[in-house]
Each structure stands twice: as C-alpha cells, then as structure tokens.
C-alpha cells in the first residue's frame, strides 16, 4: 500500500467538491474492496475521502411506491430490512448469498456497485492486464479463465463483475442516483455498469467526479415468485460461477412479466429483455424455460477453461425459473437445490 492522505467529507456537496479538487483521490466507505486492492498496489489513491459520516443511511418509502436506499446503508442492514424482506426478497436473498457476514456488515450499498472484478490477473500486478494497465494485454484469455465471462466479452477483457446484489438490482430494474458538479442524475441499472469493449479499465458509467447517493427500487418486487440461485465451488463465501436472479409475475396460469439476470458470466449483470419478453403470455413450464435459456445464451462463448459455464448457466436458468414459478425460492442457508 502506498502512502496517502486522509480527509473526511462533511456533506455530500463537500464530497463532490473534494473529489473534483484532487485528481488522485478516491472515496472510501466500507473499504472492503478498496483497501484490499490498495494492499495489492492495484489501486493507488494519493488521498482517501472518508464519506462514512454522510447522511445517506436511510431506507425510505416514496409516495409513488418506490423505495430509496441510501448509498451508505450497509449490506447486512439492507438484507434484513423489513421492507426489503417483505417486498424485495430477491434482493435480500442475493445480498445474503454474497461475501461473509463480517464483510456485509462493512460493505455499503454504493460500494457494492463499484467493487472491482476478482480476476486474478487484475489483482496480480506482475502480469499484463488491460483493466489495470490499458494496453498491456489480457492474461486471462489464454490463462486460467475458469471463473471468467462467457457473454459480452472483448479482445481486451473477459473479466466478470463480482457482485450478487447487483444481479438482483438488475432484475428489479433499479435506478442509481448520483451527484456530480453538474448536479443530480439517475442512471437506469442496465446502463450503470458497462461491457469492456476496448476500454476495460472503465467499469461503470459513473464519472470520476460523481458520487452515488441512493439506489431506487421501483414498486414491482416479485415477492411471490422469485429466486436467487448461485452456483459456486464451495457452498458459502465464494464468488459465483453462475448465478441467476428471477422475478416472475404469474396470473391465469401464464407468465405476465419475467425478469432474468445472470451473474458470474459477464462484465456486468447480464440482462436480455428480448429473451425475457418471449416468456410473456406463455405457460411456466420446462419447455418454455429451456427455450428462453437457449435464447439468452445464444451468443455465449467459452474459453479453454470456462466453456462448462454455458451449459451450467442453461441448467441454472431452467432450475431458477422453476423455483420462481413454484414459489420455492432457493434457501441461502440450506444449500440443497430443489
């Protein structure tokens, strides 16, 4: 870890002012990813701006039925919040599927969105990595790429986004509220993270001088028919090989609305609204679930060690859709997959 200066932000406006003045600065909240990356010399900020005292810790019901989650709400508090458990159990389940309770106690809502890939080459500063040092090459394409992406990859980068929470937020069509020197704006979740293309060093469309202030959940929570199914190498405290967030609205024996998001397979939580639309008006059965899984994965591409993820994702999608349709969501403590 290089030496750095430490400062505290006294208000959200002050935080935005401070980051604009110091080009080498970064915000710090939970610190669970940033401090780790600083210890590895992957991140080398010259100044940390501590935002933990800012008043962004509330979960508020809005008059239009949406919920506004402050960027500093810890992951644990969000997962166990009564309104989240009742109305958005998909989000609660996804949060509890990730990390450990200690890390969830520390990690913030905004920070979860901004955590960086766990690609081992990104972490290892003696290997080339276009995300860490643009133009040096991708070590993963011909390296140990078992954990890597199968969708939306580029020549430059095949890293995955590591978050579980974000997979649920993608399915729920959350919005990310941010503040910058030019004022506030709201970014639809599908446009928050980006694909690597030829600039994999840029993870999201948040600008350097902007701060995440809140995440907004629109009213539909899919509380009756949902699941978060996470497949990983060990049963807890491991990143996803493949994860699936599903929210279904069923009535009259057919699917009215289907939301599907995949984790562990791309540089961002993977949504395909066109594939989801093919389920509307259809009977929730295995044939239709297999068809939508095939559509969703039609452009999936495997690398030497991760081609297994394509079939794994296909089966996980069918299993997760079945769990959601039956109203039997995956338990995050009893790991038996039914």
């Amino acid at each position, binding site marked *: *870890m*290089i*030496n*750095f*200066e*430490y400062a505290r932000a006294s208000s959200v406006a002050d935080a935005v002012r401070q980051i604009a003045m110091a080009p*080498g600065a970064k915000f*710090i909240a939970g*610190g*669970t990813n940033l*401090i*780790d990356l*600083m*210890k590895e*010399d992957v991140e*080398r900020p*010259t100044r*940390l701006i*501590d935002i*933990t005292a800012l008043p962004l810790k509330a979960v508020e019901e809005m008059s239009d039925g949406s919920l506004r989650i402050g960027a500093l709400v810890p992951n*644990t508090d969000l997962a*166990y919040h009564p309104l989240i458990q009742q109305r958005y159990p998909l989000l609660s389940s996804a949060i509890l599927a990730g*990390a*450990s*309770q*200690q*890390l969830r*106690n*520390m990690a913030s809502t905004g920070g979860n969105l901004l955590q960086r890939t766990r690609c081992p080459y990104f972490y290892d*500063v*003696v*290997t*080339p*990595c276009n995300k*860490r*040092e643009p133009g*040096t090459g991708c*070590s993963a394409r011909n390296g140990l790429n078992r954990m890597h992406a199968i969708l939306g990859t580029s020549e430059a980068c095949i890293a995955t986004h590591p978050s579980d929470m974000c997979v649920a937020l993608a399915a729920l069509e959350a919005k990310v509220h941010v503040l910058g020197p030019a004022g506030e704006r709201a970014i639809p979740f599908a446009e928050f993270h980006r694909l690597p293309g030829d600039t994999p060093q840029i993870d999201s469309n948040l600008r350097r001088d902007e701060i995440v202030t809140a995440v907004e959940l629109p009213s539909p929570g899919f509380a009756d028919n949902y699941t978060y199914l996470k497949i990983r190498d060990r049963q*807890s*405290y491991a990143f996803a090989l493949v994860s699936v967030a599903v929210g279904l609205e069923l009535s009259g024996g057919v699917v009215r609305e289907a939301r599907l998001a995949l984790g562990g397979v791309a540089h961002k939580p993977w949504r395909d609204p066109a594939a989801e639309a093919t389920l509307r008006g259809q009977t929730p059965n295995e044939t239709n679930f297999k068809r939508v899984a095939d559509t969703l994965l039609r452009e999936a591409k495997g690398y030497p060690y991760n081609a297994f993820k394509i079939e794994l994702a296909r089966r996980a999608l069918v299993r997760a859709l079945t769990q959601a349709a039956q109203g039997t969501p995956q338990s*995050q*403590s*009893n790991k038996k997959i039914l």
Partner: protein
Amino acid sequence: MARTSKVPSPIGGLTQPPAKIEVTLTVNGVEAHLQVAPWTTLLDALRDHLDLTGTKKGCDHGQCGACTVLVDGRRINSCLTLAVMKDGAQVTTIEGLAANGALHPLQQAFIEHDAFQCGYCTPGQICSAAGLIAEGKAKTSDEIRELMSGNICRCGAYPNIVAAIEQAMGVMRDRS
C-alpha cells in the same frame, strides 16, 4: 511475463509523508488515544499500538476471518478497516469477552467442545460467534454454518465450532 507495473515510491504520490492522525478508540471498555498513519488498519492498531495480540492477522485480505472483532457491537474484518475511520468507536476483542474473572460462554464452550486444534483462528471464530449471537439471525445449525462462513479453520474443527456455538447460544438464552 514482464513486470508491467512500476514499483510505487515509498511515499506514493505525496511529496512529504502525511502527518499522523489522533484517533480515540474505546477498546474493551478502556479509552485509548493513538497517533496513527492514515494507512494503519484497525488490526495493526490493535496489535502494534495497543499490544492486543489476541486478534490475529491471517490473510490480511478479508478472506479468513482471523482478524474479526466487534466494532460498535457488529463483527467486522479489522484488516480491511482503517483505524482513522473508527475514531470514537467501541471495539471489543477476544481479550475483552471474559467478565469478572469468568470465561465468556463461547470461550467455555469452545474448550468443552474442543473446537480448535492450532487455535490461530479461534479469537476470530469466537468474536464472530459473539456477533452472530447478538444478531439473532441464526436459529438452526445450517444457519450457524452459513453465517460463520467468513471464518476459515484450516485444522477443520468446524463440527465442534458449530456445536460450541449452539451450546453458548443456549447458555446465553437461559441467562437472559
């Protein structure tokens, strides 16, 4: 493969080392005033500044849980927390769990159930379990296992750790 990163200079992007910062922590009920560098983790502050070496440094990357302590009653990884960010906080370490000369029910239960071999992960396991009991979310052994998954035991004492936590939960329920 060629090394692509420049070795960072000792003082990073700064022309002078930053001044040390005064931090007040209440550790195990005792107020302590420390002068720490911005990059001193809470773990290093506890071990190197306060000589509380019960809290262990295992991986130093938040992957093993050996550094788990309670901050304002919540269990966290002290290796991924900067001491300057915890100014004014109440910290409980393994040294602070026993009260009035008696072991904490978790400490007693870990001994009775032989819930360790080498013992290196044990302070973190016990602080984590104290956090787990305070949270009140774990009712079944499956839930204990899941909510203790942030604490790795390379000796593999897991079955006995779960049994010890179940016993301590019962003892603490009966007392309250």
